């Protein structure tokens, strides 16, 4: 590379960093005060971009029209943030944190379909910034707009810093980040403070999106890709540190730009395609930073928010009658019903094992994973590739696939168990995204975006009914194994570690080793689910590893309820069935799903099964009360 091209790539990276910083700063601010990981933050960014596109069309492609549109779009997104806070999140601040997460997933689904309805499925390419041309730097032409973006980043950083350190609002925000209950006891209305924080955070996301209008087309995939980027930036910089977010955004923006700029290089005879690394590089940076500095570049260990949360209740074993009746019913299904139900139930078995394995790691083991699809997808791909590329028989591929997924979990888990809480969750997402990027780009081996075809079971298993029983046997055995393990000393140790890591270690439990083993166990079983799924469909696409697949798993678990064993089963069944039903009737199935989830979140803040249990409990208490009276 020449000096000139280094400078050019540097400028490119810095320009890209501006929006990344804006959206991450908003995410970080909201998390600090409300402790909500706002998955919908990428959606707000997307709305900013679409909003700016439409406003510029309405107001005209003049400098005045352009900049007014950018500002108006950001403010409008701020109002959307206020609506989300007031209508949904405010009602569930007392619910478990994971339930708030579920609510924000639902918002992602709803916003995606609103965007689809308003702006259509085609990418929309915005205009260049009117009145700004290019400047020549070292013999290359650089858009003036990029230089402007490079200046906007530090300006927003300065404005945020002044706001947080020089105003009473800033003092309240920082105080609430540490101890919001005390802030309330001092007479501050938390609801208003939260709303204002959501407004500012959403404006930042909207501005980040709107400013990208000359640089990137508005499209419906932005919501999840931006939230993944924003997670990485927030975690690399340190949660709650605005300065850290800026540093991380610059680091990642520049690294990405250099990967594109370097292109293909020949090092020691090996050809390295750097431009293909752009999808992976940020996650590599994140993995390295988190291992070296577990709380990010400028972050500090999170002070536990003082919320009087009730500890998770002890798990109860599902009753044998319940399990046996369920099994008996499932055994007669293929005889009693049609092909459609058989196929749908086969899907449900796979997702049930997927959900139960996710529940194992996030509930009893206390490690929330945002990237559980990694193991599901790797299991599916292992099965497909062992069959097609290695030429193994299907039976062998099915048995080996979970081991492959488990082997990946050995590596990923080693890093993950070093962290806890949100950092851990985001690192799991990073590993899932690395896996996805590799699978997506390695055309010659994985089939790239097309995936793998012709992944069919052996002839004797190929019948839909036969395969139904195979899926029932394998997934049922997997679920039984996971449940059994929860009531073994190993399971008790994990639950002890979740409730208090310090106390568990003080009585001689090597918690990290146990958590690592748990990681591998659930990774292998999620891989089994993926392998069974792959053979039932006959093809595999990268979407089995996508963030969307991971969030589907989270929705299943949270919908059913984290605190019960049977919750994930109910969640997987209802989610899979509902998605199938709704998707056949409307193009806007995501919005319907999102609204259903929101309704459930607002009505049953303990999940469906948890809510039913609470209802029956109340009913019993009422009855025993009547008896005593």
């Amino acid at each position, binding site marked *: 590379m020449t000096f000139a091209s280094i400078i050019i790539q540097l400028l490119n990276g810095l320009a890209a960093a501006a929006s990344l910083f804006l959206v991450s700063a908003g995410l970080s601010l909201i998390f600090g005060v409300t402790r909500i990981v706002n998955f919908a933050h990428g959606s707000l960014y997307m709305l900013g971009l679409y909003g700016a596109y439409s406003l510029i069309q309405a107001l005209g492609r003049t400098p005045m029209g352009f900049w007014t549109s950018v500002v108006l779009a950001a403010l409008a997104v701020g109002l959307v943030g206020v609506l989300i806070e007031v209508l949904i999140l405010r009602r569930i601040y007392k619910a478990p944190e994971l339930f708030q997460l579920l609510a924000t997933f639902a918002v992602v689904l709803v916003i995606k379909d609103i965007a689809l309805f308003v702006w259509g499925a085609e990418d929309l390419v915005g205009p260049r910034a009117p009145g700004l041309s290019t400047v020549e730097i070292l013999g290359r032409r650089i858009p003036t707009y990029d230089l402007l973006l490079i200046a906007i980043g530090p300006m927003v950083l300065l404005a945020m810093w002044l706001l947080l350190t020089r105003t*009473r609002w800033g*003092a*309240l925000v*920082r*105080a609430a*980040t*540490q*101890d919001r*209950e*005390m*802030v*309330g*006891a*001092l*007479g*501050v*209305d*938390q609801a208003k403070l939260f709303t204002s924080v959501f407004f500012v955070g959403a404006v930042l996301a909207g501005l980040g999106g709107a400013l990208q209008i000359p640089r990137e087309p508005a499209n419906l995939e932005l919501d999840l890709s931006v939230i993944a980027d924003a997670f990485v930036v927030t975690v690399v910089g340190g949660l709650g540190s605005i300065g850290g977010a800026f540093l991380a955004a610059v680091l990642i923006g520049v690294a990405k730009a250099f990967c594109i700029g370097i292109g293909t290089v020949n090092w020691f005879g090996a050809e390295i395609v750097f431009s293909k690394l752009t999808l992976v590089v940020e996650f590599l940076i994140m993995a390295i930073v988190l291992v070296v500095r577990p709380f990010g570049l400028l972050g500090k260990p999170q*002070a536990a928010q*003082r919320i009087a949360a*009730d500890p998770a209740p002890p798990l109860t074993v599902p009753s044998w009658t319940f399990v046996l009746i369920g099994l008996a019913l499932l055994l007669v299904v293929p005889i009693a019903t049609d092909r459609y139900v058989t196929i749908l139930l086969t899907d449900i078995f796979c997702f049930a094992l997927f959900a139960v394995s996710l529940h194992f790691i996030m509930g009893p083991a206390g490690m929330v994973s945002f990237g559980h699809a990694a193991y599901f997808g790797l299991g599916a791909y292992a099965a497909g590739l062992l069959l097609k590329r290695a030429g193994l028989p299907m039976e062998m591929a099915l048995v080996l696939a979970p081991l492959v997924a488990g082997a990946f979990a050995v590596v990923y888990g080693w890093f993950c168990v070093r962290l806890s809480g949100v950092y851990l969750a985001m690192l799991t997402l990073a590993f899932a995204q690395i896996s996805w990027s590799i699978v997506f780009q390695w055309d010659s081996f994985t089939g790239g975006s097309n995936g793998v075809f012709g992944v069919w079971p052996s002839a004797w298993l190929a019948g839909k009914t036969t395969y139904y029983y195979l899926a029932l046997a394998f997934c049922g055995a997997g679920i039984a194994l996971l449940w059994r393990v929860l009531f073994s000393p190993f399971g008790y140790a994990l639950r002890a570690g979740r409730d208090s890591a310090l106390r568990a270690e003080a009585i001689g439990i090597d918690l990290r080793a146990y958590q690592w083993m748990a990681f591998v166990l659930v990774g292998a079983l999620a891989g089994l689910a993926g392998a069974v799924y792959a053979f039932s469909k006959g093809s595999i696409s990268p979407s089995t590893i996508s963030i969307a697949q991971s969030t589907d798993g989270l929705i299943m678990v949270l919908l059913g309820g984290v605190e019960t064993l049977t919750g994930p089963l109910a969640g997987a069944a209802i989610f899979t069935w509902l998605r199938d039903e709704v998707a056949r009737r409307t193009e806007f199935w995501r919005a319907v799903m999102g609204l259903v989830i929101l309704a459930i979140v607002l009505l049953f803040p303990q999940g469906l099964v948890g809510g039913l249990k609470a209802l029956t409990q109340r009913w019993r208490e009422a009855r025993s009360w009547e008896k005593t009276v």
Partner: protein
Amino acid sequence: MLSVKDLHAYYGRAHILHGVSLEASAGEVVALLGRNGAGKSTVMKTVMGLVSAAKGEVTFDGKRIERLQPYRIARLGLGYVPEDRRIFTELSVMENLTVGQQPPRQGAPAWTEDKLFALFPNLANMRERPGGRMSGGEQQMLTIARTLMGNPRCVLLDEPSEGLAPIIVEQMARSIHALKGEGLCVLLSEQNLHFSQAVADRAYIIEKGQIRFGGSMAELTADASLREQYLSV
């Protein structure tokens, strides 16, 4: 000014308060005495709305407050100083005071930073120091000063002398006298009988979530068997 009647409260399923009743008036310092775990802090938190009252009435200034959110209770002029101080460690002394600030209130002394620095001179020299870099005694003064910034008519002090050096405890006693002089109603919880005798006009004794004694400080001082039964360790 503050009246609690038959208050019941739970932590999860544990029944902590079993019908607590007490009163405190303006210009009066009332001590709530009891051993560790007797329920002193829970009384304070329940009055403040931080723990929800399962049953009973809390009346402040003629208004029922047992169903209100903590910030509404604070805005009526009831100040709360927690036992573990709960200083905002990242914020400077001045910023901690800012968070506690409320508009002036009729019938309550109006506090300014300068007036508070006169009451707690140690704080005046560390205005820009982060709360996390202060000694325990300094933090205790800051947490009281922070609550006073809300111009309360009545303050709940949860174990103000706990863990403080004797010289600081003396200073604390002088400060509480000053608050009484301003006409505030002060309800303080204490294990330290000596300190309470120095500052309080009346006392209640709580044990196992129930009030066992209520009377003047002089009565309590005269009754050795009462102290033996409920307070000695």
